[in-house]
């Protein structure tokens, strides 16, 4: 009975392989180890320099190997040859037991449970990703595991038994063409197929030993510690190996890039192992004087050096669904014609869309949302985009786009740049905004308009239609009585992401005006993608110092804080209570959110948790939580959240767009407003509740602390953390607050216990709202600044 251990890697991963090998030998000195190299290093000395046998993948008898090498990305190809390698070790090297380990695995103790399982009659040993549910709202979750496979194929132990051989052949047959990441069609490289393993091989052992394949996907149920006597332990079992998936050798502060559940600070003693691992990776990264991680992937380029792009591999797959039995030279020669052929999908509609264009479009959700290729006009617009942008964004060789027709539109962004101001114009203001739209931005614009009017600033309005669907700004501009534009200042009350577009759409009429952009943004760093918008304006206003500081970092133009104006809406609380069926004595806590502006930021989860832990029995406390929301609910996150809310006791969910008067009533009906946001640009609903004289319980961070303090509100402690990818636009490298839910629960309980406390705090809130945020106060601030602008641009 001889056991072989092996891994599969390309040359850029040699540091990992050497680390894996060294750790395995340290734990099991007699282990036999092989590397299958998915690369070609014939002329270099690399293979000879390794202390273990290196088998180049092209030398394993894999039918149509070069077809796979072209068809698949580097990651897919590395996983696709696994069953072929296992059979190679069994047949050509005579091993009865073959254990696969991913290169990013670090062995700590001998793999005795695997051998024990084999000895007890198992023929195939697999490890589940996790032994307990992953449903805390972070990534990856149960659903992601269901889509990518229940068992992690970074580890697998196979014995040379008939049922296993049958499984391997079946698996290999699929992997010739289906080893891809295509979740919508239920495919995830080699791993997803192994969900079948326990069904197809009777003697499959599902190894539940927590010491095996510990990794970010199961740390929630594994406690990994180190003691002098026992060494590394996982839930009191010896830690056999840790799978450092998603590790970043260049950034020791990253635990794993593929997840957002754990950070280097939360993994406890494991951080030491992580440090050790990175140290060994660094030590193994050089070979003589060379660094191994820059070795060029042999199957990443055509024979003429043209890089093989992901989109090209996709086109190849679609054109050749079956494996092609050709030589390396035949398959890897660059044929532009393969990609420039008119796409089969659009052949009947349009003879301009090439296979590559179709592929790029279908791979990018942003393009799919922007261009509906079913329409002719959109097809032309897409071709324009492709010729202008795709060469840079996808580093296309010229032969793939040069021949395409191209319209000669000028580069229109620069033409919108803020130019000289015509000083002959009147000292009046033109306000552009979504003045008739029920949204935060619309409400802000209406508030500013009222403030300007209150302060006696001559203001003319231009109502914009929200750009939700149509991507062009539709113009509904009322021409002045005198038929021409005479206003010297234009306030563009749209966010930075729409400013350039708005300026371009209104270009002639904005010429000669002093343009002020009114921008909000919810995270500490202003998105670099929006920087062109700063060229289009002379000055920027924003609702809070929080926003101002993020914008000041990226522009030298003047940035002023002009908060949103709010005042009490005069609604009837009794009416709202009546329509909700809530009696006078019941205490109402209100929280609001729009699913469009991201659940993770508004964080209603935290509000729900805090409510539940403050009032385990809401009925006895005679308290309810009203969650007012609107917006689409088709995301998984939203659905999960709403189903949780639906079954929560004492929680009323109102999911609809309400009329302004209804909303006024609701704000008046509440006793307390709760917002455990992770960040706010300003916090309009908080300010509004304060204006109504309601105490507000909110996170003590971001825009809302401009107008909230310990005297007029209840502020909740927080810790700062990184914004997980996908939780907010432009999240990379940003941080936001994690409110302390226990603290919030405690404060809620304290506040709801006594009516006097609420009344006292509510009065203070109303008073500060009047002092800081009333239309007259905000109007006065705006007029001060506009006065300076008018005198600076008067020309004299």
């Amino acid at each position, binding site marked *: 009975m001889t056991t072989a251990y092996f891994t599969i890697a390309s040359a850029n991963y040699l540091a990992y392989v050497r680390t894996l090998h060294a750790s395995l030998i340290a734990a099991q000195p007699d282990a036999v180890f092989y590397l299958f190299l998915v690369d070609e290093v014939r002329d270099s000395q690399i293979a000879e320099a390794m202390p273990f046998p290196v088998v180049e993948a092209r030398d394993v008898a894999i039918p149509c190997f070069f077809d796979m090498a072209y068809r698949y990305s580097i990651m897919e190809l590395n996983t696709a040859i696994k069953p072929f390698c296992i059979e190679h070790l069994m047949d050509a090297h005579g091993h009865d037991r073959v254990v696969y380990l991913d290169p990013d695995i670090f062995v700590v103790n001998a793999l005795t449970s695997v051998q024990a399982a084999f000895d007890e009659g198992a023929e195939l040993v697999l490890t*589940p*990703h*996790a*032994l*307990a*549910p992953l*449903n805390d709202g972070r990534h990856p979750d*149960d*659903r992601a*595991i*269901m*889509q990518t496979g*229940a*068992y992690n194929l970074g580890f697998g132990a196979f014995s040379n038994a008939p049922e296993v051989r*049958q499984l391997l052949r*079946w698996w290999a047959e699929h992997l010739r063409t*289906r080893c891809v990441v295509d*979740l*919508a*069609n*239920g*495919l995830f490289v080699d791993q*997803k*197929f192994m*969900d*079948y393993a*326990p*069904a*197809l091989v*009777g003697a*499959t052992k*599902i190894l*539940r030993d927590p010491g095996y394949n510990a990794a970010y996907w199961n740390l929630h149920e594994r406690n990994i510690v180190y003691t002098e006597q026992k060494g590394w332990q996982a839930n009191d079992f010896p830690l056999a190996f840790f799978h450092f998936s998603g590790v970043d050798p260049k950034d020791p502060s990253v635990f794993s890039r593929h997840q957002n559940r754990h950070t280097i600070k939360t993994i406890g003693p494991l951080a030491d192992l992580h440090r050790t691992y990175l140290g060994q990776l660094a030590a193994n990264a050089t070979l003589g004087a060379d660094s191994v991680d820059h070795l060029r992937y042999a199957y990443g380029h055509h024979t003429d050096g043209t890089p093989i792009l992901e989109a090209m591999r996709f086109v190849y797959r679609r054109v050749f669904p079956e494996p092609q039995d050709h030589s390396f030279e035949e398959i890897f020669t660059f044929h532009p014609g393969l990609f420039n052929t008119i796409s089969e999908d659009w052949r009947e*509609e349009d003879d301009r869309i090439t296979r590559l264009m179709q592929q790029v479009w279908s791979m990018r959700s942003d393009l799919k949302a922007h261009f*509906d290729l*079913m*329409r002719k006009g959109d097809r032309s617009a897409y071709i324009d985009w492709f010729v202008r942008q795709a060469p840079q964004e996808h580093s296309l060789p010229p032969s793939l786009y040069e021949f395409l027709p191209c319209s000669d539109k000028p580069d229109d962004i620069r033409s919108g740049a803020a130019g000289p101001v015509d000083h002959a114009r009147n000292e009046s203001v033109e306000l552009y905004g979504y003045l008739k739209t029920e949204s935060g931005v619309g409400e802000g614009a209406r508030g500013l308009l009222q403030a300007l009017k209150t302060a006696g600033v001559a203001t003319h309005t231009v109502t914009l*239609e*929200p750009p*939700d*669907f*149509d991507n062009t700004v*539709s113009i509904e501009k009322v021409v002045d009585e005198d038929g021409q534009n005479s206003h010297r200042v234009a306030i563009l009350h749209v966010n930075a992401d729409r400013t350039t577009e708005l300026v371009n759409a209104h270009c002639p009429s904005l010429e000669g005006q002093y343009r002020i952009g009114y921008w909000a943004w919810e995270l500490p760093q202003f998105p670099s993608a929006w920087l062109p918008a700063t060229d289009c304006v002379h000055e920027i206003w924003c609702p809070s110092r929080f926003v101002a500081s993020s914008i000041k970092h990226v522009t030298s133009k003047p940035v002023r804080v002009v908060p949103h104006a709010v005042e009490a809406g005069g609604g009837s609380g009794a009416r709202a209570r009546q329509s909700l069926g809530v009696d006078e004595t019941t205490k109402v806590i209100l929280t609001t959110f729009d699913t469009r502006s991201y659940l993770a930021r508004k964080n209603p989860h935290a509000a729900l948790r805090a409510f539940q832990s403050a009032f385990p029995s809401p009925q006895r406390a005679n308290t309810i939580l009203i969650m007012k929301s609107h917006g*689409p*609910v*088709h995301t*998984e996150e*939203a*659905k*999960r*959240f*709403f*189903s*949780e*809310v*639906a*079954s929560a006791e004492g929680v009323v*969910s109102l*999911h609809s767009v309400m009329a302004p008067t209804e909303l006024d009533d609701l704000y008046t009906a509440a006793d307390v407003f709760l917002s455990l946001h992770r960040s706010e640009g300003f916090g309009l609903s908080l300010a509004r509740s304060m204006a109504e004289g309601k105490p507000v319980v909110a996170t003590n961070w971001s825009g809302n602390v401009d107008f909230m303090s310990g005297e007029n509100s209840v502020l909740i402690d927080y810790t700062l953390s990184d914004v997980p990818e996908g939780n907010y636009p432009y999240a990379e490298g940003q941080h936001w607050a994690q409110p302390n839910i226990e603290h919030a629960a405690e404060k809620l309980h304290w506040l709801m216990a006594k009516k006097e406390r609420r009344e006292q705090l509510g009065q203070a809130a109303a008073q500060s709202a009047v002092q800081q945020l009333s239309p007259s106060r905000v109007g006065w601030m705006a007029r001060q600044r506009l006065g300076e602008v008018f005198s600076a641009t008067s020309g004299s």
Partner: protein
Amino acid sequence: MPDLAGQNVIFTICSRNYLPYAQTLVSSLQEHMPGAVILLFLADEGEVGAIESYMGVPAIKAEELRIPTYYDMAMRYNVTEFNTSIKPYVFRWLFDRGVLSAVYIDPDIQVFRPLTEVYSALNEEGANAVVTPHITRPLDMDKKPSELRILQTGVYNLGFLALAASEASIAFVDWWLTFMPADCRADLKAGIFVDQKYVDLLPSYVPGTKILRHAGYNVAYWNLAHRPLCNESVGWTACGEPLVFMHFSGIRPYEEKTVSAHQNRLSYDDLGEGQQLFEQYKERLRHGYRRLEECKISKDYAYGCFSDGAAIEGPIRKLYAQALPPRSLSYEEAFDPDLAHYSAPAADLRHKNRTLISNVMYDVWRRKGHLRKTFDLNKPADAEAFALWFAKAGYEEWKISKRHIPKDVWSLVKQRQSLRFKMSEIYFVLARRVKAVSFLFPKPVRRWGVRFNRAVLPRIAGRGK
């Protein structure tokens, strides 16, 4: 209702349309496992007493399980999705009542032998759960269902599931439950398939999960290619093993020679001796439907209609599911046929003709490529044309009730049917066809003609009345 504490319970779930199936299952269980505690959970409305006497076992309305979003789910899901979404709640309900073990069996199953292997796994081997894989040998990719399709819907078939009332199983059910209010749908692209796909994680989350590969369990169209049926002296066998239960998924009781509506791998002739099994099962079903009629039990699914009795057709459920989050609702609220959302103007449109396009109409347009190609609803003129076409023919094609077409459209249709409008249409067609018209009647003359038509024709039409 028997006292359930300490019992081994077998249950099934169905709506009224499947009662004859459930009855066939129950009588086969009673025949081969006399004394077993069998329960029916009814995912439907109706008179429980009549159903109990038809079935011969206690029946419990799913409504009584106190599922927080029960009626919302009944509206959100189609009949299959809804029936499966009840399952985890029933397990939980039974565990709360102290059962020793609970075994779920689909109503379209017929049992031929006692479930000996299941109970020996639960009782002697100490298993927490027993599941049966769809297949125990590879199929192929050419016929339906392919290996890949089965992988997408789940490795284990949830027509059968046995759980012991252990801590691990209860924890699993509590986790499983959380997906039911919104994500018990058939949505392969999102990696979801009713309640079944979640069970791929059962062997991971529940130690002691028995994967029962016995060829006599859960024999159905997905594994019949490997499990030929034979009538031997010991009784029926599948692939040489004693047949324990057949799962007649996709059978059509009133059709000849259909193995299952969901497959094309096997022909009826391929069944060989097994044809007898299918024939006797279909006969039992037909008998069951006749008896159902005699017992005066409706076989119509109550949640297939709005509260006013109008059928819920076409994309209505999907539209509801996409636009509205799971909520705790009364029957009237969930099944309100005039729920504003259906016929409200499409939220995504921003022009004067948006009042002509309801959310239901917009949804049809959005999902159908050829409609998007013909009409660009972002343009007012196209929106009008689409609305007119929809009111004329589209609603029938897509099975949309007329009530979900906005009133504005009907008044537009009426206007278009007026004589004046028809005349002007004819005039324009003529003008385009006959090139000489522009020569014979220069523009001023044509303009005068239009004015004349507008002024005089309505009067002529009026005189006719």
